[in-house]
């Protein structure tokens, strides 16, 4: 394993229902690096994330995470409906987590303090996703795994939450593994774009995203990727 790696993942083969679904997928992520795992629906993005999280061990290969502190956002918020928003955060946090920290995190993801006392059933989908992001951050994760975290949210909220993730990664050296099929989201926050596609899915590309201040280079990548990976024409561009 690379000395400073926060995540090393190597899937030689993953079989599901007798059929290989992933083959030769491997990457190493450094501290504070944001990797966008990109691919069409059914390309195995979620499966790769589950393997990275240790939820799926039925594969040939290995996964190494030196830092056990994981933060996760699944495709659905997975909030416990019988616990208030604040208690959903406390559930996963250290016992001595302060009310101030919870309030700061909720404010950080754009939720008003009054939301802390509400049950999740009172929240909109956008608020529930923000709560799930705050819950992922309350553990001070070393690795943050986000599975289509902002799907079906409006572009403004998506950009806002993407900025929260990017800021957290830069400030606290949190490694982020983000599954998405939104090209603009990947271009907005990722350091690298990993493309999964094919049958079985393989890692087709590991592309470094240029400095975002270089608008021309970003634009060139925005045009180049759909040309190289046709599935992006229908799923990625906005």
């Amino acid at each position, binding site marked *: 394993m690379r000395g400073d790696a926060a995540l090393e993942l190597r899937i030689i083969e993953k079989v599901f229902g007798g059929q290989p679904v992933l083959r030769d997928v491997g990457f190493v992520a450094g501290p504070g690096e944001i990797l966008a795992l990109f691919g069409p629906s059914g390309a195995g993005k979620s499966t790769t994330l589950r393997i990275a999280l240790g*939820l799926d061990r039925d594969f040939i290969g290995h996964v190494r995470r030196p830092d056990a502190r*994981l933060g996760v956002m699944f495709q*659905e918020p*997975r909030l416990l409906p019988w616990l208030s928003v604040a208690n959903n955060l406390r559930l996963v946090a250290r016992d001595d987590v302060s009310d101030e920290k919870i309030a700061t995190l909720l404010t950080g993801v754009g939720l008003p303090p009054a939301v802390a006392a509400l049950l999740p*059933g009172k929240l909109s989908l956008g608020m529930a996703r923000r709560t799930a992001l705050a819950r992922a951050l309350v553990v001070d994760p070393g690795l943050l795994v986000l599975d289509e975290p902002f799907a079906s949210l409006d572009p403004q909220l998506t950009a806002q939450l993407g900025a929260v993730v990017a800021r957290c990664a830069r400030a606290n050296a949190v490694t982020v593994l983000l599954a998405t099929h939104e090209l603009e989201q990947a271009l907005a926050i990722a350091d690298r774009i990993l493309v999964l596609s094919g049958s079985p899915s393989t890692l087709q590309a590991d592309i470094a995203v240029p400095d975002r201040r270089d608008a021309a280079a970003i634009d060139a990548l925005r045009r180049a990727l759909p040309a190289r990976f046709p599935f992006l024409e229908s799923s990625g561009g906005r």
Partner: protein
Amino acid sequence: MVPRLAFPARAERLLSLLGFFALWWLAAALAADPRLLPGPQAVLAVIWQGVLSGEMTGNIGITLARVAAAFVLSMLVGSVLGVFAGRSRRADALLDPWIIITLNLPALVVIVLAYVWVGLNETAAILAVAIVKVPTVVVTVREGARALDPGLDELAAVYHLPRLRRLQRIVAPQLAPYIAAAGRSGLAITWKIVLIVELLGRPNGVGYALNLFFQNFDVAGILAYGLAFAAIMLAIETTLLQPWERRAHAWRRGA
């Protein structure tokens, strides 16, 4: 809306109860034979005398203790087995034939065999009731365990939640409605079986008293004990079990 609905419901219940007593009174008057069907007043008088002498309260107290012991034992054992059966296919496969057999075994057979094998004592009485009741708790709680959200299990695994916290915060709230349902139906079954157990092999309790009244053809005594005990079980259900079940579902209403 809830208070407006609650009052008529309470009024209708009271009306229904008054209707029952009125019908009973009318039937007793038509029968005109207090030995065959005594009226409500005669039965209430027997209850009052039983309370004053302490005989009825003593017998009811003993029966309630047996009901409580058998209920707690069967809920504990049934809930634990139900969770195992719902969470593990192997445990389910091992338990299922036992559940089917015990569910279909007549309660009377279990009671008689318990007395024959263990002896005419409290252990046999409580054990017999628990053996009859446990399978129904297992079946209900097993359904709850099968319905546990695997997504929340994954959440607990990712965050390495301690076992106790998982049980308290994730598993218990999901199982609570099933355990409450098993408790409510369980209490009704338990006390009826306890009376049979007492009738067949105990020297005290409501079942024993009913047997004596039956042998003396004392219908007023039978009705007095039957009604008094049913009223107490109804009170327990409405003051303890129903509020517990409402609490188990409270977050759904709050959502």
